Each structure stands twice: as C-alpha cells, then as structure tokens.
C-alpha cells in the first residue's frame, strides 16, 4: 500500500478541539482512511471526547457513540449485537485512550475479548490520562513524570497487547502514528477478521509528554527506532514483527533509548540509573519477542 492509494475523504473534520500536533487526531484520521464511511465508532471519556467538539456539532463524520469511561468495549458489544440481530454488517470500532483501555475499561475489554465479540478495539496510547491533565495511567512508562508521579512513575508500563494476546483473540497488533501505512494495513486486516480484534496505537502527545508540537511524528519514530515501542501483529497466535521493527531484533540495530527520552520533558529529571532500568526493560521485551519468533521458526509457523 502507498500513501497515494489512500482515501482522500476526511472522517474527522478540521477546526476541531485537539491540541496542535495531537496524535489522537492523527490516529483517528488514519482509521478513517482505512475504514471509510461504513462503520460505527464508540468513544469513551478521553481526549477524543473533547476533540470532536461541543454539541450540537461534531467533527466526526461517522456515526459515533460517546460512552462512559469504563464501558467502551461493552457498549460496542451491544452495538455489534444489535447489528447482528438486525442483519446489518458494519464494523464497530472502539477508539479509546490508554486509561479507558488499560485501567478503568480493562474489565469490559477483557470480557468482550473473552466472548470474542465482533469488534475492532483500537487503543491510542498517549501514556497518561491526558484529558484530565496528565495523570499516571498503568501504561505510563517507568520513570515518566506525570502530575501524580512527580518523581517519575515507579512501576513499569502495563503490557496491554500482551495481556490481550493472552486472551487468545484472533488478532492483536501494535502500531504507531508515525507509521501510517503499517497502521492502516493492520486496521484493514482487522476489518476482514470476524471476532475480537485489538490494536494498540502508540501516540506521542506533545502536551503530556512535554515536547514541541512539531515533533509528534519524530518522537513516535524514535520510540520505534530505539525499540522502546515494537511494531508487531499476532494473527491467530502467530507473531510477526512489522515495519521498521522487523530489522531491530538485534540490540545493535536499535538506537540508544536516550535519543527517545531526551526530547521529552517528562523524562527530564531521570537519572542514569533510571535510564538503565528503561534499557533493561526494552531489552527484556525484545528478548521475549525474539524467543517467540525463533520458536515459531523452529515450529515452522
């Protein structure tokens, strides 16, 4: 797929309330380009709630249900159930933040996944509760400043895609707003699979991560390039690296994580020791991936 092939239509209109350089907007634009107009969107409380504007107007051109913070996967299950019983065949797509996914929405998410509801759940991960002003979420990475972790978060980032993969759903993928084609291809693949699809979209947020608004994509690219964020998909249990991550299995291929950290104000205060912890964490995560990939090779999948 090539940029030029992409849909010219916009599904989130300009002049909306996102911050300049907002990754959530980018993510949503890309979803639109992958899905087109025949889909139903479900959005829990999050930056998206604000972004699409104030009643009686909306920036989103797809039918959209705003719903309570904890419930997006459940509400989407309901929409999907209704469509099924009515014989309608539109994809139902959740677009939720990391808080609404990994924290307060996790239970509904896990339940829907276990029931293998026919929905696509996309989490845009800006690594904190940005809408309420940058509080720690469980996907905030170790060491990051937020307004509730002034000295940096003490715990590691919750690995939601891994948790979702442990649910044995047909499709799990990670993506980054810095790699639009990779992301769009994943959404398009998800559209073709019946059952529960989970895509975790890395979404560097200038406001919350404290970097200049023009660097949104750059920071996203650095996350992938340093291996701090890994692009992969798991289709029916088989893991595949995608995009640039394919070539980063060996540590040497990856940029030093400092390059990623230093552009972000939220990591300004961190010590060398903390950087070491972060590097180790990255190393470990890659080891896990490597393990799985090698084994798959052995097993011929």
């Amino acid at each position, binding site marked *: 797929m090539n940029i030029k092939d992409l849909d010219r239509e916009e599904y989130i209109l300009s002049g909306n*309330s*996102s*911050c*300049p350089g907002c990754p959530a907007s980018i993510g949503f634009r890309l979803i639109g380009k992958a899905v087109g107009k025949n889909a139903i969107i479900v959005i829990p409380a999050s930056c998206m709630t*604000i972004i699409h504007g104030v009643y009686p107007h909306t920036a989103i051109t797809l039918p959209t249900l705003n719903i309570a913070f904890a419930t997006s996967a459940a509400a989407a299950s309901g929409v999907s159930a209704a469509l099924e019983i009515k014989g309608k065949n539109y994809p139902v797509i959740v677009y939720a933040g990391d808080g609404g996914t990994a924290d307060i929405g996790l239970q509904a998410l896990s339940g829907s996944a276990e029931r293998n509801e026919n929905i696509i759940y996309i989490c845009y991960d800006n690594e904190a509760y940005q*809408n309420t002003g940058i509080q720690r979420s469980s996907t905030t990475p170790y060491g990051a400043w937020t307004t509730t972790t002034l000295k940096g978060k003490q715990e590691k980032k919750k690995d939601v895609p891994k948790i979702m993969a442990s649910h044995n759903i047909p499709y799990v993928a990670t993506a980054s707003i810095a790699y639009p084609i990779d992301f769009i291809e994943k959404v398009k693949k998800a559209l073709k699979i019946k059952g529960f699809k989970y895509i975790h979209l890395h979404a560097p947020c200038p*406001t919350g991560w404290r970097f*200049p*608004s023009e660097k949104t994509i750059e920071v996203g690219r650095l996350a992938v390039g340093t291996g701090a964020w890994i692009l992969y998909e798991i289709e029916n249990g088989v893991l595949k690296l995608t995009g640039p991550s394919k070539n980063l299995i060996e540590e040497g291929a990856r940029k030093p994580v400092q390059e990623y950290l230093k552009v972000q104000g939220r990591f300004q205060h961190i010590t060398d020791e903390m950087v070491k912890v972060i590097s180790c964490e990255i190393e470990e995560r890659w080891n896990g991936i490597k393990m799985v990939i090698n084994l798959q090779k052995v097993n011929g999948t």
Partner: protein
Amino acid sequence: MIYEIRFHGRGGQGTVTAAELLVKAAVAEGKWGQSFPFFGAERRGAPVVAFARISEEKHFLHSQITEPNIIVVLDKKIMEAVDVTDGLKEDGVLVINSSGLFSKESLRNFRICVVDATKIAVSLGLSVAGWVIVNTAMLGAIVKAVPLVKVESIMNAIRNNWPERVGEINAEAARRAYEEATVL
C-alpha cells in the same frame, strides 16, 4: 466597590495565573479577591478567558462575571476571533497588549490602556518554547490603568510565585509595564 476583571489570552500564555496573581496582590494588601478560569479544554494557542474580582470588603459572590469593569487582552490576535468588549461596563477600561497606540473604531466608547508587553517581555528574555510570556507585564499595565493595588504588591505577588531570578525578572516586567503603559 467590586472590580470585576476579565482576561483574554491564549492557551500557554499564563492568563489564569495573571488573574490569580492580581488577587494575591490584593489579598496581601488586606483586600478581598477571587479569581477563576472559564473552564473548557485549554489548548495551546486557543483563546482563553480568566476572571478576577477585587474589592475592599469581603463579599459573597460566586457567580460568573458578565459585565466586567476591566478587560485585559494579553494577545491582540484574540480580537480577530472574539468580541473582547462583550459586556464591558460603559465606564469600563480595556488594557491591551499592543505595540503602538492602539485604537479601533469599535472600542471608541471605552477607556483604553495600551502597553507593549511583548516588547518588555522579549527584552527581559521572558519566552518559553516560542511563546513570549506577557502575563506579568500585563499586571503592571492593569494597575496603571486602574489603581486596584500598588504595583509593589503585584511585584511581591510575582516574587512569591516564582523562585529567585524568574520571579525577579517577571516582577521587573510588571514594573516596566506599569511605567510604560499609556492610558489613552
């Protein structure tokens, strides 16, 4: 009398802080004060509004301010998008950050105080990430236009708010603006 002040700025300019500092200065003088933002999502660059009430005596008000006595415009660009004079009392004052003597047809009816806060701020090196920080300078201009509190009180409030050099420079910005502001 209760002075009601509305601040117009843009997200990232410290508009809300300006309102709060004005109140702190007033309270330090034994007056009563109150400040509050209009709360929506405050986006970088987007128009922002904040309010303050200053009075000699304590009062019980908590309602919004719709007919202010003073309007403060931190960024002239706002005026392209927002009718900043909306609700301004007939004998009200407009304090505007502007280079050059600012006058606009529609503002004719009001007293206008102009200060080049941007220039002052720039000259003092008050800028963060592409933004010139004019909020403290504007405070000096306000008390020039209307002697709500002494400029020294403003300067002290600023010093108490930021440590050391940052406080000093900002206090200096207020002082200079106080001096340079022109009431038309």
